């Protein structure tokens, strides 16, 4: 007769292993979890750091009335990783219903440091000066600071980097996709701007090159209320805060004014810095400080004899090779008896006629696209010179 098997030892062994496994995971994984404030995937008790199911007075049962107040309960600067939220210029805009969670993700998954909604180059987060990232690396900022974003108060900065199919070589600078790679060093948005709050206009930092509270050098940004930035003097002072002798930023010497024209801004009191250093002719301060260009300089000198005859043309300045991305300033000087009796008319083809001023100079703006002819007319005499952009 076949002996009846006893299954109970197997069943009780299985049950015992199952119970022990449950207890093991519960005790070692859940019961000893530290109080991680944000990631409820790791600690489901963390919800109660911000939400209170019974006493929550704010929206979505937050412990405070607003998202911002809830965040600032902890993010008040009392711990190094927190951000001080103070200053006259702030990035939260009650009238547009923006707050911390406009830029930051409160709940996981956390794809972008530090808990950002969109990508922002780690170059700044990690304080790496020489990172190179395409425009897509600055989505966090440029999503709002671009035309059509829906945020009317956010200046369109993206346009300065997407001017052509090849992008724009922003000097200050965000490397646009496909654009030229300039030499030197690169700044990203948060090198100059404090994204949370600042005492300065336009969220400009107090000290350049500062991440968190570490002061890397002692260059102090010129600070003014934003409405003052429309004045030539204020704009010039803003630029000269950094572009002055001996300033280093993040270990790199700042490009000073060219030798020989170190004080040219003083001899051109009617000029804005952005007259020459932005691609858009005329004063475009926003473009000039975000994507400044370094124009090539062409000096065109005319020599006029005592009979008011133009004897010769001469030009100096290395403007070859030129590409269509270059900007050239042609400064045409009159000489001889010109100052006393007449003025020189400059005709650009293509272009508009330009009259020299009482100082005998005419500043003309050439942007490369085709051959430009500079024609000087004086006392009925004409001389011309052609500049070719390759």
């Amino acid at each position: 007769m076949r002996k009846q098997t006893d299954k109970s030892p197997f069943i009780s062994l299985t049950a015992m292993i199952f119970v022990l496994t449950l207890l093991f995971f519960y005790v070692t994984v859940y019961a000893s979890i530290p109080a991680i404030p944000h990631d409820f995937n790791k600690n489901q008790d963390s919800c109660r750091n911000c939400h209170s199911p019974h006493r929550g007075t704010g929206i979505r049962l937050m412990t405070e009335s607003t998202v911002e107040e809830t965040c600032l309960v902890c993010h008040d600067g009392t711990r190094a990783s927190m951000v001080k939220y103070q200053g006259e210029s702030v990035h939260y805009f009650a009238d547009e219903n923006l707050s911390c969670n406009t830029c930051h993700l409160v709940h996981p998954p956390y794809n972008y440091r530090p808990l950002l909604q969109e990508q922002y180059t780690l170059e700044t987060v990690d304080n790496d000066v020489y990172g190179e990232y395409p425009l897509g690396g600055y989505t966090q900022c440029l999503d709002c600071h671009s035309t059509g974003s829906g945020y009317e108060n956010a200046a369109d900065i993206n346009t300065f980097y997407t001017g052509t199919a090849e992008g724009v070589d922003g000097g200050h600078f965000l490397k646009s996709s496909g654009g030229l790679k300039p030499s030197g060093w690169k700044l990203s948005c948060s090198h100059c701007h404090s994204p949370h709050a600042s005492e300065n206009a336009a969220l400009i930092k107090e000290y350049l090159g500062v991440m968190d509270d570490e002061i890397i050098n002692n260059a102090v940004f010129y600070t003014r209320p934003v409405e003052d930035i429309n004045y030539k003097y204020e704009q010039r002072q803003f630029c000269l805060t950094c572009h002055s002798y001996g300033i280093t930023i993040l270990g790199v010497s700042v490009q000073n004014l060219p030798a020989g024209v170190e004080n040219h801004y003083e001899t051109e009191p009617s000029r804005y810095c952005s007259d020459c250093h932005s691609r858009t002719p005329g004063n475009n301060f926003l473009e000039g400080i975000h994507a400044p260009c370094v124009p090539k300089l062409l000096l065109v000198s005319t020599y006029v004899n005592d009979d008011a005859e133009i004897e010769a043309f001469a030009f100096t300045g290395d403007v070859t090779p030129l590409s269509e991305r270059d900007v050239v300033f042609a400064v045409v000087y009159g000489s001889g008896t010109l100052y006393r009796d007449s003025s020189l008319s400059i005709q650009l083809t293509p272009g508009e006629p330009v009259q020299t001023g009482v100082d005998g100079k005419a500043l003309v703006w050439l942007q490369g696209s085709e051959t430009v002819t500079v024609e000087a007319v004086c006392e009925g005499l004409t001389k011309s010179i052609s500049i070719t952009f390759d």
Partner: protein
Amino acid sequence: MSEFAGRLGRTFSDFDREKLRRAQIGLTIALVILFLILYLMNRDPLRLTQQFLPGTSMPQFLYSIYGPNADEMMAKPMAVTVSGNRVYVADTGNSRVQVYDYNGNHLLSFGSNGRSPGQFRFPYGVATDSDGRILVADMYNNNVSVFTPNGDFLHYFGTSLDFGSPAGLFADDGRIYVADVGLHKISVFDESGEKILEFGSEGTEPGQFRSPNAVTVSRQYVIVSDTGNDRIQFFNKLGTYIGHISGVSKNKQFINPRGLAMDPQGVIYLVNNLTHELLAMNEQGELQYVVGGMGQGPGQFYLPNGLFIDNQGRIYVTDTSNRRVNVYR
């Protein structure tokens, strides 16, 4: 399945099934008890007072101090001190200091929001010097202000060279100790405001700090709540590093430690901010008891911060999100 069980049964038929069954049951019970003990030691911190070492006296909850009245709640009280029979509370969210009598009745308030002398933007540490003057560290205005006991502004000391973000304060024996969360150091001043000592720098090594929020002084030690490093550190009166505690026995970790104090019996009290508890331990890091737990009830906390023990042995803990100060004895 039944065939497999049958095969297993034929294997076990070679053993004494009764003994095996008893062994299994006994082992299961023993392991369940073991894990139950582990669970009790590590369970959810939402619990009330516990006592671990017999013979230690536990503080008993007395009462809570709220704002002046129902319409004027405190907002994020960060620190507290006691001078004579008055309790001074840094009502940080309201940019002022609240003053109460020894029974918790409101007496007066002083300070307002701003940058002018006598104003605050983030009043944090409060202390009283040997002359009974009230010292208030303002983390955003970057100075330490001095007031009369009735709140009349006298002067302030500290410059941007001295302070990054002055937070915790402690006065002892003519010295004022300032915990600086911005410069990650402890600065020591005399009562005229002259700096006489500083120690610490940013880092994680012994003797370094990351955002030290509080400092206290005992007969032997200067003890610093090294918040960003989740530990407390011990120094002598010259600022020489002695040792540190990163967590205590019974598997209790420091998580965002804030206010701390030492009583005359050598018990170290520490506010464990993110577990909403007040821990009591000895110098060897042996946990004596835990007070509080997350909640709004009597004796519970919601993100506690400041801590002070007066000369009567009363323990004051600022319960920031509950907008009150809990008092124990």
